[in-house]
């Protein structure tokens, strides 16, 4: 199955998984996202780079339904869609790991993983046993050391909390995965595990949008990188066409050196 997906996205004429076109959103006077266009293909990792406040989180929150854009269009598999709430985005199999993780600290890992999508018994009551078993399964895959399934997540370490958020995004068979600084709270070993996970999901044909400040990591993991500054898109490049320095100068100067040629 992965092979057919690969073939699909490899062909240049294939319909992109996601097309965002002319997206704008202002908070009061702040133009957080100012006319940004991006495409994402199946089986592709698209990196999103830029300084703090560049508008990266705002852009992906529009795709995940957390914010409503002022103007612009979003197409999924070529079809124009309205994403007005997190529920809408879930319907299009978009899963998001938010920068803030968006965990309810007073609930345990299981409750957080299934939040909004609880498994219920035929009587309509929550099937806690089933949910806990499923959580154990996925956590065993993502973070084998993680055993504290029924403690409030406020008691967990930053890395453990992050793996709960990652598990939540991965468990529900996403087709489009958005990861906003997923490795920010992680150590070297855990970061490596996330990198492996991204590779694996990519092979399965997911389209992934990855936000990170680690340019080197991005050059390794991504197929293409997009750079934002002050709410605008500086440029999008295939990683094999640019150097790390090119990317850095795009981030800092807000100009695409290749476009200037």
């Amino acid at each position, binding site marked *: 199955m992965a092979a057919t997906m690969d073939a699909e996205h490899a062909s240049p004429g294939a319909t992109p998984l996601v097309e965002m076109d002319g997206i704008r959103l202002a908070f009061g006077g702040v133009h957080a996202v100012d006319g940004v266009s991006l495409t994402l293909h199946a089986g592709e990792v698209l990196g999103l780079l830029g300084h703090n406040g560049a508008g990266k989180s705002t852009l992906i929150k529009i795709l995940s339904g957390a914010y409503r854009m002022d103007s612009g269009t979003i197409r999924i598999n070529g079809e124009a869609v309205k994403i007005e709430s*997190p529920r809408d985005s*879930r319907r299009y199999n978009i899963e998001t790991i938010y920068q803030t993780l968006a965990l309810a600290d*007073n609930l345990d890992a299981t409750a957080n993983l299934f*939040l909004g999508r609880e498994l219920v018994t035929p009587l309509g*009551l929550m099937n806690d046993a089933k949910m806990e078993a499923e959580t154990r399964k996925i956590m065993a895959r993502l973070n084998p050391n993680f055993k504290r399934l029924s403690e409030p997540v406020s008691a967990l370490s930053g890395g453990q909390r992050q793996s709960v958020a990652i598990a939540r995004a991965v468990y529900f068979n996403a087709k489009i995965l958005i990861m906003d600084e997923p490795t920010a709270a992680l150590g070297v070993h855990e970061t490596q595990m996330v990198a492996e996970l991204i590779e694996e999901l990519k092979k399965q044909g997911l389209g992934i949008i990855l936000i990170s400040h680690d340019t080197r990591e991005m050059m390794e993991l991504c197929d293409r990188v997009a750079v934002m500054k002050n709410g605008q898109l500086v440029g999008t490049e295939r990683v094999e066409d640019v150097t790390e320095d090119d990317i850095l100068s795009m981030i800092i100067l807000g100009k695409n050196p290749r476009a200037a040629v």
Partner: protein
Amino acid sequence: MTDTAAPAGATPKAKKSLFKALEIDTRLLGMIGAFVVLCLVFNVVTDGRFLTPRNIFNLTIQTVSVAIMATGMVFVIVTRNIDLSVGSLLAACSAVMAMTQTWLLPDVLGLGLGHPIIWLVAIVVGLVVGTAIGAFQGFLVGYLSIPAFIVTLGGLLVWRNVAWYLTAGQTIGPLDATFMKFGGINGTLGTDASWAVAAVAAVAAVAVIFMARRSKLAHGFPVKPLWAEGLLALVAAGAIVGFIAILNAYDVPIGRLRRIFEARGQEIPEGFSMGYGLPVSVLVLIAIAVAMTVIARRTRLGRYIFATGGNPDAAELSGINTRLLTVKVFAIMGALCALSAVVASARLANHSNDIGTLDELRVIAAAVIGGTALSGGIGTIYGAILGALIMQSLQSGMAMVGVDAPLQNIVVGSVLVLAVLIDIQYRKRTGGK
């Protein structure tokens, strides 16, 4: 705490491992401990008058009205809101129900006083009114983003005076005879039915404990040792049977018995006695407690209430409609105010304008003493009921000892603040929020 991280085999301390094996909420134990100490102290000071079947019976029925509302207040506070209008809402529901059963149904609709359907219709009307008002307040909070403090502060003034307006300030009574059975002493199950309830409840409690264990085992989860589970089941069953035994031990006074027999045209047999048993109002409270606990723990609604209280943004991002949730929480609170109004007005045998005055403070205090955190996300139904019981015991005990009214209130107010202080310290120590 470091001991939670310690491997299972490491130097077990006897006390800690006992609590650990039982997996009992230590906070609950602390509250029960405080309650027991309180009762014992009052019992000593009153020369044994505090812990008599009669006083325990009275304490129980006095607690019901506030306890019912306190269970709803848990949901309200857990979602980071507050409801200051519950006492007034109770009065509004009480007024509407009183008018329904003494005027609307018997006179306007011509059913006549004492018609067997009157009590039921009156309660349904009260529930509809309470739920509607609660939902309306929830709408103002959830959809129009007016702070709950303001909405319900307004409600505090509005609903009591709506009641006043409707009843033209008159006390309405006597209420329907069947309706008044919800008030406490006028409606008890008698000893036989109470024993039956005790048996059913004890069996149910034991069944729930062991069914949960079986389900855990079926999914390969760790379970408590069998002895711990057995001990817990024994304590639960013992508490239920013991409580009923006490209520059954409170005998109906001989004068009252004589009147009952006279009404039947009979002579009272020599040496005849009869226990009151479980009041209907307490049965109502138990049913509500079970229902609210199931909602809190086992339904999506409950999960969303706690998630929203813990992190409203996360709840929103998980696709939870937090606005509608707010409406539901306040609607539940309104329905519980109506049920409280049934118990409270039935106990007084009439509706009066000042019914439920200051109940908002008692209800909030009960929930907070019971461990509901005002910062949201944390609270239990049983805690709130225990909180209501502690408050009522304190009040009744002091009255019994002969403490002056102003001093009583000073003590109750101080205890509330102290309880919250202890709670904050406890949560800091255990690392909870």
